[in-house]
């Protein structure tokens, strides 16, 4: 898909995100806005998937797991815009009886979701398990997962990283949203991750980097990541993003990690984001 077309979709996704969180005065806009470009690219240009015929087992389809479940608004918007469920359902986000729970769940059977997430650090293990089963099933499709950089403070991530390299799980592509922010402040101040590139490399992964707001760079990097699959090593992409990307007053701080805009702020934000596909 052309970059302009992807940008077109991503702008609508960003509008959806701020409207969803403002609509219930809760949720996590910062990381959601930061990952809007990546998830748009993934679902509209990268994944082999069938939105209208979602199955839990996903045989013959690429799988995606969102490990940092709190950025559910961006995932829900992209899933809806890609055809997994009606766009109007975005209006129910976080409301009683909704399929769009605060953090993603399989409980309400929302198409597109295969695992609950929210409690951090579990999704890499899940993705690796699913990837190993794809090998058992002789299914050559891939498994993708997304993590926050703050999430890497969870020890289980490194259990999974060690395991995947030791077992040569080479059909998984993990992406880390490196926005450098978490709830309490900058990641470097809360608990520094040190040299992340060196850490993943030392754990035995192929490590790539990309600009999470540059579609050309992301397309090239994803192509490179896919070409590295099947060669005995898992692949991780360190994706540089800006928390709150697209809304000027939400960028440059951790402040909008988990805070919804008030009506005035919402109006300000929507003024900066073109309505392209039509609001829900």
């Amino acid at each position, binding site marked *: 898909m052309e970059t302009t077309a992807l940008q077109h979709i991503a702008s609508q996704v960003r509008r959806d995100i701020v409207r969803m969180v403002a609509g219930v005065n809760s949720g996590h806009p910062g990381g959601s806005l930061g990952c809007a470009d990546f998830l748009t690219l993934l679902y509209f240009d990268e994944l082999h998937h069938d939105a209208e015929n979602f199955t839990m087992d996903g045989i013959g389809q690429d799988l995606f797991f969102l490990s940092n479940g709190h950025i559910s608004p961006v995932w829900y918007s992209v899933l809806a815009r890609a055809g997994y469920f009606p766009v109007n359902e975005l209006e129910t986000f976080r409301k009683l009886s909704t399929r769009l729970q605060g953090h993603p769940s399989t409980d309400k059977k929302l198409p597109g979701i295969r695992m609950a997430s929210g409690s951090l650090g*579990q999704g890499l293990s899940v993705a690796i398990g699913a990837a190993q089963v794809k090998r058992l099933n002789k299914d050559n499709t891939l498994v993708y997962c997304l993590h926050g950089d703050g999430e890497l403070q969870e020890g289980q991530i490194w259990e999974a990283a060690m395991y995947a390299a030791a077992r040569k799980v080479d059909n998984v592509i993990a992406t880390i949203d490196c926005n450098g922010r978490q709830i309490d402040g900058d990641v470097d101040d809360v608990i520094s991750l040190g040299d992340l590139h060196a850490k993943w490399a030392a754990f035995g992964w192929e490590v790539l980097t990309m600009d999470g707001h540059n579609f050309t760079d992301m397309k090239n990097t994803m192509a490179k990541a896919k070409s590295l699959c099947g060669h005995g090593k898992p692949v991780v992409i360190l994706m540089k993003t800006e928390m709150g990307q697209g809304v000027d007053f939400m960028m440059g701080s951790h402040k909008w990690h988990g805070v919804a805009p008030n009506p005035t702020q919402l109006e300000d934000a929507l003024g900066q984001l073109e309505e392209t596909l039509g609001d829900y």
Partner: protein
Amino acid sequence: MTEFEILGNKDTRSGFGEGLAELGRANEHVVALCADLTGSLKMDAFQKENPERFFQVGIAEANMISLAAGMTIGGKIPFTGTFANFSTGRVYDQIRQSVAYSRKNVKICASHAGLTLGEDGATHQILEDIGMMKMLPNMTVIVPADHNQTKQATIAIAAHEGPVYLRFGRPVMPIFVKPDANFVIGKADVLTVGTDVTIIACGHLVWKSIEALKTLEEAGISVELINMHTIKPLDTDAIMKSVGKTGCVVTAEEHMLNGGLGDSVAQFLSRTNPVPQEYVAVNDTFGESGTPMELMTKYGIDTQDVVNAVRKVLARKNA
């Protein structure tokens, strides 16, 4: 006198190992994961026969549980194996989110449960696991009584769609369940029919209760002994039927009083047919090093404790 034929002496964990090996041969969807305790869990046979379906994860239980959850996607039936302590408390959040809430078809198989782990001491003797697991929505909790029943339960849970916690142990104990017995999840085994008192037991305490029968029957007490191998879903019909007849109940388990089988029975009876109940269970204390049998005696979950509890509950009933 009720006679129970002893069919041999074995540990329940070996029953798990045999059941898993049989599943490996019969069901290509079964996969197994182990956190560096393959020998202790008796998973060697499965590993040897199905190397491509066996996943050694090392000492990383959290990773193991979430890997297993991921492996259900694509149609596999993962069985995880480690000690009960590391199968539950250590990985509660992984089980809660990725297995129970996500309703994944993972079988959490836990050995060395309770005090009868013995000499390793309290760090490894978990007595809270039944409580933790039964509190999770969607979770089935099974505590088989002997070697044969553990094998039967292992095979049965593969055919059950949904999360299961299967708890077994280390000590060699008498086998009394017939090798061809039909294990039905949620359907209790009535071992003796009686009219004075109902004993509801699980795990190793079923055998301890069988031992107690001798003394009780000699004293002229008519005991209905129920092997409640499934803690959740609880066979409330069996409880209702028996307690309606006997009017009192003793529950017996190798678990903390808080949160165990006795709790489940009391919760049911308090709403339907409140009767005197006594508990044979560990009461709010950690264990310690010792032989399994020494520990059962010291912590009040031995044969004599079952006898004493029956006498006490009968006195209350007849007061």
